């Protein structure tokens, strides 16, 4: 195990995969000479040369399409889209080509590519640069969408994504790049489509992914200390395929759930998770599933408004207590610290 940042884990994994397989190559805006907007690709141009680390024009549709073609012919391109907001320029390539080619052409060509891209608000980047639109891709059969919340998962899922024969959208998060954690030294790819119980508990299931899985774990640990709550945290890790079994098993144990997400509430990932729980754990539910999400507005620029629009830790704690209150959790306790 080595303690490192999420950023470093991504960098090191890209590098080790490039060393392992000469078909792995990188494409994106300013990833070479400038070493990437978020420095994930630092030093890789110098080490591997222009053929395998390609700086592209500001033309997402063009270079994403080029990567799809390269993947069909045997390379394993890893495309960096500077933020997920810019994926909208390339969405036709991703949704109508990368996701569909394998099925539409009877399995004649696979598209083993990775699209790396960070989402996340809270950096005062304005409405068009602060979105969490991974849902658009998680919606599409033919794509895989993964969203690691820790440096260790970033490594394991990147290994899995590069080695997977399907196109994988790899969601990073601006607020997670500097977070640190222990990362295994050996290369053990994750299984795409498996969620993780990052904290076992019995009182309530708290579900999130990407930054919100990190926040959920933090809040659960904090409430264990301050309020003796025993909250189970589920990190989805993968949005498509979605690990419904882990979600359902957790709620069967706790009988209630809160889903937290950085994107908008309506039609969101949380809605899919809530429907999953309703399908699979209905007879175990003691309270309705609550969702905590961003305010339904284009992200404001002003810091105060941006903070207010994002789901806060207080919002999550409030939802947890509303749910626990609804099932009489506190009323049935008589400990001296309640």
């Amino acid at each position, binding site marked *: 195990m080595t303690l490192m940042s999420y950023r470093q884990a991504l960098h090191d994994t890209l590098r080790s995969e490039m060393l392992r397989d000469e078909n792995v190559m990188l494409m994106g805006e300013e990833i070479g000479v400038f070493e990437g907007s978020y420095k994930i690709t630092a030093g890789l141009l110098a080490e591997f040369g222009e053929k395998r680390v390609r700086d592209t024009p500001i033309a997402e549709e063009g270079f994403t399409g080029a990567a799809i073609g390269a993947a069909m012919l045997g390379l394993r391109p890893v495309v960096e889209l500077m933020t997920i907001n810019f994926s909208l320029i390339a969405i036709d390539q991703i949704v109508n080509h990368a996701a569909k080619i394998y099925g539409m052409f009877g399995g004649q060509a696979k598209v083993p590519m990775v699209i790396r891209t960070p989402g996340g608000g809270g950096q005062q980047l304005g409405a068009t640069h602060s979105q969490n639109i991974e849902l658009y891709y998680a919606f599409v059969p033919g794509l895989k969408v993964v969203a690691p919340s820790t440096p260790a998962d970033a490594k394991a899922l990147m290994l899995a994504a590069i080695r997977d024969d399907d196109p994988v959208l790899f969601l990073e998060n601006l607020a997670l790049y500097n977070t640190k954690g222990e990362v295994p030294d050996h290369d053990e790819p994750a299984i795409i489509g498996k969620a993780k119980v990052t904290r076992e508990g019995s009182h309530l299931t708290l579900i999130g992914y990407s930054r919100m899985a990190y926040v959920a774990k933090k809040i659960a640990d904090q409430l264990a200390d301050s309020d003796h709550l025993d909250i189970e945290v589920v990190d989805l890790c993968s949005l498509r395929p979605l690990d419904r079994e882990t979600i359902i098993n957790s709620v069967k144990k706790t009988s209630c759930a809160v889903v937290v997400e950085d994107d908008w509430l309506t039609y969101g990932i949380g809605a899919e998770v809530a429907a999953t729980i309703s399908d699979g754990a209905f007879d175990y539910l*003691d309270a309705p599933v609550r969702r905590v999400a961003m305010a339904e507005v284009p992200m404001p620029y002003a810091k105060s408004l941006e903070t207010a629009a994002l789901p806060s830790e207080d919002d999550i704690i409030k939802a947890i207590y509303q749910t626990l209150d609804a099932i009489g959790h506190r009323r049935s306790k008589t400990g001296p610290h309640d």
Partner: protein
Amino acid sequence: MIDITMPRLSDTMEEGTIAAWHKQVGDQVKVGDILCEIESDKATMEYEAYEAGTLTAILVPNGGLVAIGTPIAQLDNGKGGATAPAATAPAAVVTPVVEVVSAPAAAPAMADLDDRTGIIASPLVRRLAREQHLDLRDVRGTGPGGRIVRADLGQASPVHVTETPRGAAMPMASGPLVDQKRGSKEIPFTPVRRVIARRLGESASSIPHFYVTAAADVEALVQLRGQLNEQLAALGRAKVSINDLMIRACALALREHPLINASYVGDNAPSMLVHDRVNIGVAVASNNGLVVPVIVDADVKTVSELGAESRDLVSQASTKGLSIDQMSGGTFTISNLGMFGVEEFTAIINPPEGAILAVGGTKKEAVVVGDEVVVHHRMKFTLSADHRIIDGALAAQFLQTLTRLLENPLSLII
């Protein structure tokens, strides 16, 4: 049409009493209008409307005590739902029982108990009822809108057995509470009294208390206080009391013995908590019962600051103006009965704190100084400590430090 429910106003609040309705049925309500005053376990707070509309029903009258989440009124916000007036709305029927413990008047919106068609229960409860042949008609729901949740199934449900309540439960009194032979009459519990009863009962039965008493020669302290007060009076400032000096002395002693400033947080917790901040609660016998306002960061405040702050809090407590915030976050409590002529006594720990100091009055006594018998003021105080985290020697060392500070009072004002 929306239900207005009993809000949770503090961490420890489980139920609330309607102190007074400010709006009547039929009144127009604007966002921000005060709907009613709600008495929680700690304070009375105004409950503002979050939505505008017409108040169509008051489900819990003045004085009514209900669990949080219970509907207390209905508001017609002009959106969807019932077209019939709330007084006859079937929604009132499916609310199984509005629990009104100490309401003097009959609740007008009590559910029609004969109509059992509309039992509201969570899916989990319905499954358990099916599997275990439970009759939900006999179960009172305490969830939102009267929903029956697992916790309401009580011992009838095997899944509930895992939740063993802590502490000894009081057996429910059976038979008439009031009898002529004893000439008794009922005084309804206020929420404050209810919380005192529950918390102190739990503290006394679950915390292994032990008591250590010490006495200090406070002659110098009494004289210093006299000098201080002369100067403060000359400056037109408020005087300091012996208790203010005691708060200061305790704060400094807690700094020296941080392990007293600590909490035992449960049998399953992997650790105890030691608090960095010294927040001292001062037990106050107010008109509304025992309350403990907290002076935060007492260790970094001067004696006159502590005096001013505790005087403010005490006067606020008597007028019932203390907010939840002013009564939470304490790490140690002082209870002083010296003003009643009490020499010494013991106090019950205020959880989750680790210790409480019971302070007696200053009293002139004959003491031997050198080889002479002189008359000096003396004071006794008793520390009650939680033996799960504090041992006798530590408690004794704390009192030693406290005695030293009180006997050398200049150290309190520098």
